[in-house]
């Protein structure tokens, strides 16, 4: 009997946390479900880009993917929660929320469209990079920032009086290099791997938001798996995700250090007073999306900042 094939499609290189997580998952499944299930990993958008992979999944041609949470806006508005600025203090708060009941329930928010969230994977906390030093919100006024397609992120930069621009990832480096765009927000690992630190002289360590992924599959595929195999696959995935998250945390640290060591850009650390100003300017964004996301969810997420 032929093994069940899980095509795992993602858009990043194999040495990234996501790439390593996918490969770990492949290896664990090969070890534990030999002959029954086989995972094929397709990195670097070889199979589908993030915009189309979910459609391909619903058609049954891809079984697993891990798009960034902002990419789900066409499927649910609830996940916009993760884009809200200054909602989580740090990545541990994100962890607490995701493992709590509200975070787990949120995995089901895409089920109406035929998808199932299987778990969250970190990339890390986002920092601001720019062609000029950003210490207080006023510094960002009038600057052009590249963002992913997300209403929340657009509102966040508009709150600063800055101009959010949507540009394909492939063009960002050139636009930053030539200063056609003034800045962008991203995690330490993306700033390092995409070499943005080479073309952006200033990085503000703002930790103002989180960039996470959701590992998804289609209900049709998942519910069609024999129960015992499903449980095995899920436990292998959970283990792989835990491993990926560990890699992500270490990578955030080491990539930050590599950026500092490169001496190609200046790191700006905010004083508590300066950070409070950013929070004050950006937090009104929450109110705008309260109806779409749900106030209870926002409260639950905010509460996770208090370690139990």
């Amino acid at each position, binding site marked *: 009997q032929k093994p069940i094939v899980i095509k795992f499609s993602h858009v990043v290189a194999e040495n990234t946390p996501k790439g390593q997580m996918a490969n770990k998952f492949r290896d664990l499944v090969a070890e534990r479900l030999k002959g029954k299930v086989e995972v094929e990993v397709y990195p670097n958008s070889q199979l589908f880009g993030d915009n189309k992979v979910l459609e391909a999944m619903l058609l049954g041609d891809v079984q697993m993917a891990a798009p960034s949470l902002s990419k789900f806006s066409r499927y649910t508005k609830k996940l916009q929660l993760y884009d809200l600025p200054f909602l989580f203090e740090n990545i541990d708060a994100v962890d607490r929320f995701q493992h709590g009941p509200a975070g787990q329930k949120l995995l089901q928010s895409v089920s109406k469209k035929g998808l199932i969230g299987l778990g969250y994977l970190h990339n890390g906390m986002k920092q601001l990079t720019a062609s000029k030093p950003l210490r207080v919100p006023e510094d960002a006024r009038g600057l052009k920032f590249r963002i992913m397609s997300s209403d929340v992120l657009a509102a966040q930069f508009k709150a600063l009086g800055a101009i959010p621009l949507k540009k394909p990832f492939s*063009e960002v480096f050139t636009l930053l*290099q030539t200063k*056609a765009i003034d800045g962008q927000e991203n995690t330490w690992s993306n700033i390092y791997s995409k070499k943005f630190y080479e073309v952006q002289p200033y990085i503000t360590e703002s930790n103002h938001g989180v960039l996470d992924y959701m590992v998804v599959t289609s209900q049709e595929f998942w519910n069609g798996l024999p129960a015992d195999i499903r449980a095995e696959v899920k436990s292998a995935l959970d283990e792989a995700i835990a491993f990926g998250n560990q890699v992500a945390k270490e990578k955030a640290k080491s990539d930050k250090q590599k950026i500092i060591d490169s001496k190609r850009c200046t790191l700006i650390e905010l004083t508590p007073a300066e950070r409070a100003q950013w929070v004050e300017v950006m937090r009104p964004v929450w109110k705008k999306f309260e109806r779409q996301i749900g106030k209870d969810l926002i409260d639950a997420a905010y509460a996770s900042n208090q370690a139990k």
Partner: protein
Amino acid sequence: MTTVGLFALLFICMLLGMPIALALGLSSITTILLFSNDSLASIALKLFESLSEHYTLLAIPFFILSSAFLSTGGVAKRIIRFALSVVGHIRGGIAMASVMACMIFAAVSGSSPATVAAIGTIVITGMVRAGYPESFAAGVITNAGTLGILIPPSIVMLVYAAATEVSAARMFMAGFIPGLMMGLILMVAIYIAARIKKIPSQPWAGFREVFIAGGSAFGGLMLIIIVLGSIYGGVASPTEAAAVSAVYAFAIAVFGYRDMGPLKNVPWRLESESVGTAILRNTGQIIKALPKCVTDKDVNKVLLDASKVSIMLLFIIANAMLFAHVLTSERIPHHLAELIVSWGLSPWMFLVVVNLLLLAAGNFMEPSAILLIMAPILFPIAMKLGIDPIHLGIIMVVNMEIGMLTPPVGLNLFVTAGITGHSIGWVIRAAAPWLILLLFFLIIITYVPQVSLFLPEFLDKLHGY
């Protein structure tokens, strides 16, 4: 098995004379139906993704549109006059000027056949009149025209950038020095040949002529500044610069030079007209002419021609991506890469294989299609061997240049045959001696990566990275 089936089907379809796009599409879909579990629905989805998710590829229709306006707008004539005024007095100068004209035109246009057509038409006849053998003239231009894809901007480089996610701007920069070098090699060869064949030169027309000719060609030359300036000056990305250049080419052809469109033959300044009234009159006329462009015959023809070529290219590209998708989901590049890696080739030997493969493909296929099929296979292997992606790109582009000169499918050969009215066989013989230069050049490009990498790396250093 799958690989054999896929390529056999593609080959049969192409032999039947089917449009390449349909041949690529059909062989991909049939392979999927026969050998894999993927659904037809996901193929439709992939086809739409190929057409709608590649922002970089948008530069192709934009550059084609801008080239179309320039070619019909008489810009080529002005560029030739300028080139002639600069190097026309050197022995073999008209031929050298023609090469220079090709280089300048290449710096505003992204296509090789367009370069041959725009420059060749005028200069081949001109050279024959000045006492050059016709085969000499035709051979030089057919070769120099290939610079269209080596000197930026270049449609072929954009295709490579899209296929491998290498930065298009860096590719453009990397093509600059090789382009100048190839132009110089051609000029030196011409000078030597002209000495041997005792070909006459033109008298030096003086700096006045250089300035006048330069001024008259200024509108066209500005495009180089606009394209390269806006990319490196922080105004726009390559794709956006292409759109800007299309809009500019339209404006300069219709309102500037007025060789076409609603203002055709309307002078900027009438006799006995004061500057003030001329400005007023022209402003009024341009405002009135703008809506007329919608129904203008010349403008519509340029638009439709550019559309035809763009659709043809983009449709091939979309189907070639489908083809590449089949290759990937069947893990063919993966296996092929493992095979080649297992041969234990050194990078040196691998590049020989790459060149032979591409030269063979260049005999039969159109550059964009070759790149889209070959790049996904060769790129990962090259990365494993530590070859620079930009260097690999330039090697591929030079191979594509040669492909334009080799029968049976060689676009530049067709154009020159059309211009001169001679047979393809005659053109092949005329171009052959110069083709050898190009092969020699390919060897330099392949084994001296610094030629391609110097400028992008130097610019990076200049910026302190």
